[in-house]
């Protein structure tokens, strides 16, 4: 009677009724706010950087919603934040400025930060005034993250950091970085030699971001070099040597959200409009299967939110949703191109649908790279099933 599938149950989650009002409020706000926003920008969604927009969300109390009230948060449930986040994603709101802070940094600091860090920084996160970036990957440590080599040496006054991080989104304009460094050089302590640090990028010297242009011409991610960077002793987050455990928890937040299946939802909306007079049964059925997929993924994603809300640790389930969500969103641009011969165009040419398609076709390869590849996700799933 025991079944592997029982480990992968996604109990349905009915959102509390009163969230309906919040949803309507967010929708109305976004409709108003994004009127003048170009469609291509909308298709960038959580990678589009707009400090002004983030500050407006902050004013409304829609950032860091789950963080404790004593530090300026709302003390809301995970569901309230979920509603705001999914509405922003579907509307193609430019959430890049606050994205990392709202999704994971605020929670990480609440869990492991010291009082000074919490008092000083969390209010900035909830106000939409702090942009965070994540210093994890390195030139020689991608999927094998624990092999990273950027070292933080203990000094009299704090830490001395030397090394290089890469693929760090927003590092060229972020206010803070939370980075994982090797604090113990003992080669036997691969995972146990890692610690997390908070870095004030505006005040710290010796850090040089170099923007890396992506294939679509976008300039979001960076290579960041650290040369004799001095950090104060209290830059350490949590416990020395516990970095890997803390990062794993952080990655659970990074991998479980609705952004892992909604990246191309704006394209699906536009595609449906482009095909509005379509009577071809095969094309309609293809659209229908995408709608069924999106509905299924939303059910699963929401179920994870409720597991997180209940204090469970849905690492396995979250990996499954990230893997499936990635398949869905990554295949959408290609499918759209098969269903309709309107050619993908560069920004400024063609109808909005063509521009969105042009953008998403180009950036879709990154969907299965960021936040852990499907190969890594499947390894985690296999382990969760007890076969690895």
């Amino acid at each position: 009677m025991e079944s592997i599938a029982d480990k992968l149950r996604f109990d349905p989650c009915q959102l509390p009724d009163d969230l309906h009002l919040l949803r309507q409020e967010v929708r109305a706000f976004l409709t108003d706010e994004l009127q003048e926003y170009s469609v291509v920008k909308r298709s960038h969604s959580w990678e589009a950087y707009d400090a002004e927009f983030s500050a407006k969300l902050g004013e409304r109390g829609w950032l860091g919603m789950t963080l404790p009230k004593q530090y300026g948060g709302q003390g809301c449930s995970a569901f309230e934040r979920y509603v705001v986040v999914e509405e922003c994603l579907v509307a193609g709101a430019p959430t890049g400025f606050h994205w990392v802070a709202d999704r994971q940094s605020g929670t990480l600091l609440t869990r492991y930060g010291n009082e000074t860090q919490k008092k000083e920084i969390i209010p900035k996160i909830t106000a939409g005034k702090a942009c965070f970036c994540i210093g994890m990957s390195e030139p020689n440590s991608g999927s094998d993250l624990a092999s990273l080599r950027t070292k933080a040496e203990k000094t009299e006054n704090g830490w001395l950091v030397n090394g290089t991080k890469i693929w760090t989104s927003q590092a060229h304009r972020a206010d803070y970085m939370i980075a994982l460094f090797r604090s113990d050089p003992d080669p036997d302590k691969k995972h146990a030699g890692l610690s997390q640090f908070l870095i004030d990028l505006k005040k710290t010297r010796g850090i040089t971001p170099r923007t890396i242009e992506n294939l679509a011409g976008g300039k979001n991610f960076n290579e960041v070099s650290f040369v004799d960077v001095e950090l104060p002793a209290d830059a350490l987050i949590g416990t020395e040597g516990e970095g890997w455990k803390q990062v794993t928890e952080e990655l659970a937040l990074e991998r479980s959200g609705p952004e892992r299946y909604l990246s191309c939802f704006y394209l699906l909306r536009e595609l449906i409009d482009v095909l509005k007079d379509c009577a071809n049964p095969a094309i309609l059925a293809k659209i229908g299967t995408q709608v069924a997929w999106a509905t299924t993924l939303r059910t699963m994603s929401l179920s994870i939110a409720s597991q997180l809300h209940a204090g469970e640790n849905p690492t396995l389930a979250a990996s499954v949703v990230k893997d499936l969500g990635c398949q869905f969103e990554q295949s959408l641009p290609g499918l759209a191109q098969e269903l309709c011969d309107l050619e993908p165009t560069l920004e400024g040419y063609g109808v909005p649908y063509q521009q969105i398609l042009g953008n998403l076709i180009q950036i879709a390869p990154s969907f299965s790279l960021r936040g852990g590849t499907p190969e890594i996700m499947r390894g985690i799933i296999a382990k969760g099933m007890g076969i690895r």
Partner: protein
Amino acid sequence: MNELQNMLHESVSRLFEDELDWDALTRYEKVEWPESLWDKVIEQGIDKVLASESSGGIEASWSDAYPVLRACGRYTVPLPVSEAILGQWVARQSGAELPEGIPGLLTQGFSIQESKFSLNKSIVPWGSRCSYYMAIHDSELFILEAQKQEVETQNNLGRDPRDRISGEARILDRFPTNLDNDSLLYLGALVRSIQIGGASAAALDLAVTYASDREQFGRSLAKFQAIQHHLADLAGLVASVDAIAIAACARLDLSGITDDQRNARFEIAAAKCRASEAVEKITRLSHQIHGAIGFTYEYGLHFLTRRMWAWRTEYGGVAYWGQELGKLAVESGGNEIWPIITA
């Protein structure tokens, strides 16, 4: 799972696990009708999990019945148990009492003129064994006599009877109902989605066990990354089928399928569309992981996969439900699709 769901899950799984090993499944599909198992199903009241109390049921919700329906898929029950369960729910919704015996659900191939009910090659699960038929037409639930019609016996790929019935059927009883003409189709689609979830989960379990036991190149198949990724892929697909099916049950409990405003029709369509689409890869991967042994009759993976291939199109497949959802999408417009999903 709540207490009732746990209890139903355990008792029904125990019965089917005990009764339906390889020998029994083979005998039932090659030689005999599983009469004694059907008697046990009736004796334990499994068919009446959704029935009204006055009909001897426990008036459970669809969410509660979900583990029972899923077990029908998981253990490839060669009996019309899911049909009987849903028939009882339809009766309960319509204030009807059903006769004893096996119901035949009519979803197509029938017409009614001046109180004369005619069947024309209507595909009926276990049609030749049915004691009566059920059909919904213009706000009436019809209970029809299942005798004297012409029966063309035919099995689906799972070797379960899908007989073609033709001829006139005497009306035994009729009840006003608020269910729509296509309600049986929707409910049939829902139970097949749930059964596909159950069968998929069983196929996944077999694949994991086989990959762990079987050794090649000096180690178990499960140690090969390619196989691990197949298994992980398979597990994700199985989870997706289960997730939307159980969500459709919850929605059905909450809003029914007839309410004009918001009802479970959208989720049911999505569940069957997803399940039917996923069957292709679920069966392909489970067979691939098993290698040649899975292709033999002797191993028994086929009890699951053959049924999934059949269930894939029964009560509408990807083409039907995909088009329904596709039409809904283009008619509503791109801006409305998200509000529909989140309603």
